[in-house]
């Protein structure tokens, strides 16, 4: 398995370069103009000058190579300098956003806390409630619990967050006044009352997202459990006199985890990608909002960098999932 992991990691490098190239070409092809947000009162020739100042006049392959060097050489140097106080990256041009004229990675780092607090937390909570719900729903198929679980999760999945988020704001912020409708990204938790405030501002976005995530994962958990509960090995295990708890939670659960692990692993990079609509509704301004504003403003270096980081995570977590398959079911071999 170690062999396999190393081979796959090495293979990831060319794959990622190809992916970054495809993303670059896609962005290059996409219609759009970083000057679209500039008011119409600014004359076209001034806009043309502004585009040149962004380096848009250069041919695409030069810009792609520049981006590769900036991302793979300069940015790691900056990180190294930051940690060890060295000066490798001095005077080297980093990946600069067209909108803010500042290094893209600085903004990304700035956005990570709120994304992890809100989107990450909601994912963890979603997974934690989805697994038991899925298991119980399958074990007691067609019980009241199962029916309610099915109903709630289907509603949770089919009602888009742009609606459920606004509904929560209208109920809890406007009518009851319990929670703030606007997330304060500058808030720092340093004592009990600030922690309470943090909880208050997180509760609505987290519950909206957690419901959505839990709905999806619990469906896969339930379906997979149902498949396995009827297998012969379950009957054998019961016949051997194992307790029901061991049968279900050890044997069946372990064998049912493969699709669930796939779904969870696919979801982790999306945590990083942020929840675009939910972040927008609650003004969380995390990575999702960063990506969507960059796309709308045609800030190509920013979009390219963000989607590439996203791609790295996808490749890594799909590898993690593949490794986990082998752990869950030792019969699966890649060698």
């Amino acid at each position, binding site marked *: 398995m170690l062999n396999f992991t190393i081979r796959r990691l090495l293979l990831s490098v060319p794959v990622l370069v190809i992916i970054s190239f495809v993303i670059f070409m896609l962005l290059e092809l996409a219609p759009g103009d970083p000057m679209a947000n500039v008011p119409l009162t600014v004359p076209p*020739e001034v806009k043309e000058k502004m585009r040149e100042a962004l380096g848009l006049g250069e041919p695409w392959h030069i810009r792609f190579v520049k981006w590769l060097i900036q991302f793979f050489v300069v940015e790691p140097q900056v990180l190294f300098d930051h940690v060890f106080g060295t000066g490798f990256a001095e005077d080297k041009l980093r990946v600069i956003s067209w*909108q*803010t004229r*500042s290094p893209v990675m600085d903004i990304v780092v700035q956005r990570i806390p709120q994304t992890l607090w809100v989107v990450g937390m909601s994912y963890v909570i979603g997974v934690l409630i989805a697994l038991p719900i899925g298991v119980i729903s399958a074990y007691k198929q067609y019980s009241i619990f199962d029916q309610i679980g099915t109903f709630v999760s289907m509603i949770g999945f089919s009602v888009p967050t742009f609606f459920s988020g606004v509904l929560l704001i209208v109920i809890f912020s406007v009518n009851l006044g319990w929670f703030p409708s*606007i997330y304060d990204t500058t808030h720092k938790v340093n004592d009990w009352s600030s922690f309470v405030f943090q909880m208050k501002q997180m509760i609505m976005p987290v519950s909206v997202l957690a419901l959505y995530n839990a709905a999806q994962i619990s469906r896969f958990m339930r379906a997979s459990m149902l498949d396995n509960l009827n297998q012969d090995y379950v009957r054998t295990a019961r016949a051997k006199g194992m307790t029901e708890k061991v049968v279900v939670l050890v044997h069946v659960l372990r064998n049912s985890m493969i699709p669930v692990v796939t779904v969870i692993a696919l979801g982790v990079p999306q945590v990083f990608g942020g929840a675009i609509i939910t972040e927008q509704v609650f003004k969380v301004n995390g990575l999702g909002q960063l990506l969507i504003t960059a796309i709308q403003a045609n800030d190509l270096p920013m979009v390219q960098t963000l989607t590439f980081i996203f791609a790295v995570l996808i490749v890594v977590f799909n590898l993690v999932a593949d490794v986990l398959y082998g752990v869950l079911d030792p019969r699966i071999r890649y060698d």
Partner: protein
Amino acid sequence: MKLRHALTGAAAMMAMAPMAFAASHSGERGRDGELKIIYWQAPSIMNPYLSGGTKELEAASLVIEPLARYDQDGNLVAWLVDEVPTVANGGVSEDLKTITWKLSEGLLWSDGTPVTSADVKFSWEYCTAEGGGCAQSEKYLDVVSVDTPDELTAVVTFGIAKPFPYGPFVGAQAPIIQAAQFADCMGAKAPECTEQNFNPIGTGPFTVTEFRPNDVITLAANENYRDPSKPAFATVTFKGGGDAAAAGRAVLETGEFDYAWNLQLAPEVLTQMEAAGKGKNIVSFGTSVERIMVNLTDVSPDLGDERGTAAHPHPFLTDKNVRQALSMAIDRALLVEVGYGDFGRLTCNVLPAPAVFASTANDACLTQDIEGAKALLESNGWVAGADGIREKDGVRLSVLYQTSTNAVRQDFQALIKQWWGEIGVETELRNIDASVFFGSDPGSPDTFQKFFADIEMYTNNFDGTDPEAYMANWSCDQAPRPETQWQGNNMPRFCSEEYDALVTEMSTTGDIGERARLAKAMNDMLMQEYVIIPLVHRGRNAAHANTLGGVIMNVWDSEIWNAADWHRVEM
């Protein structure tokens, strides 16, 4: 040759205005605690020279200021100077080629150093430096030199006579930045100065404490601000992101924020939000007009590279009667009511303001006339076919109508489609993402400049109060075409020698009355040719909390231009 009447009046008014506020409310600086502003589009930089966007311009106006700016009525107001130079007071030379600005005494930057004429000169150099891509370079057009005879005097010299010399250093677009701070950020180095661009040293009422791009800006009162009793607020939180409905809700319904910008929402939604009693809606009217552009060229895809060029006239929109009928079928009063409520006014002009330039010659458009439109088409040979769509010589009146994606615009499209259906014109609707539509990517077929449709709708306006550049948009050479990489502002591809002559005449005319006559004549020509069909004169609206005093909505400059005077009021 003189703008005297207009300008002397403006100068007199400005001196009075700030004092009046000071008297009504005063006390020590920072007495009112925190001010919370929400802009649903977040500012990404604090340097207006590097971003032409309105959101950046306005955020920056809290920190950096111009020498003079426009007040809520569009009059010039001295800001960092004691009086606005005019021909009358000798500040503008008789030949209209130089303007002399004298800085007020004792002005300090927020770092405590004095403001000098060298900073003024530097601001010009910074914006015109090669390779900097300055968004406001148009403001400094024709400036030959800026001389600094002494610490407080800056003399701007133009290469040609400038009847309206208030481009450089006037308005939120052209503020003064500190020479010492930006000295190493000239030209191609401009983008590398992240610290300077995020945290400019200014003369305004606030200074940046933390700038988080596209998220939130925290500001604190400027300790060196020229008036010791201002600003009333000790800190400002300038939050960005979300959508207009959420911003409106935060100010009008939950009271979490004090001021929200540009609430493009249905009028009834805003009224209902206001009913919660936490704040109120405000509006001010500038020069924005939502208009329909009629394409005079054929955009059939079969034409290949010559698609949308003057070489191929449009099959039926070149018939003035058709264009007129399209305009007559529109009920503008209903459009205003549905889309803008109190934030829109009726207009029949593409140049609706300032009052001196507004024509009254086209007011017939104010009433819808479906029958008249039908009769006009009928009498010109456009007769209804089997499916109710009019045609003549095998040409069907069928149009493709494009605009950007926006709830109000889609409602307008639906209404207008129905009215045109009633007079026998078939309409296909298309809406395009704003970042594509308003972009100028020559590779995209969907930009408003390429205009590969028969009809398009959007809003435009002009900076400041002088319409010369704006009216020049519809001269022949402004037509977007392949040779200009599809750049240009003359979307209808309107071309008339008579119109071009008026444009030329206006550029050499200084007398305000004469300029008004020319601008009106150009407006009337466009209106009576029906190449531009005005729909609504749009106001700029905002909402502020009832506990926030001193807000004066201003469309001619940054709308938070007088934030120094804002203060808390008791409910």
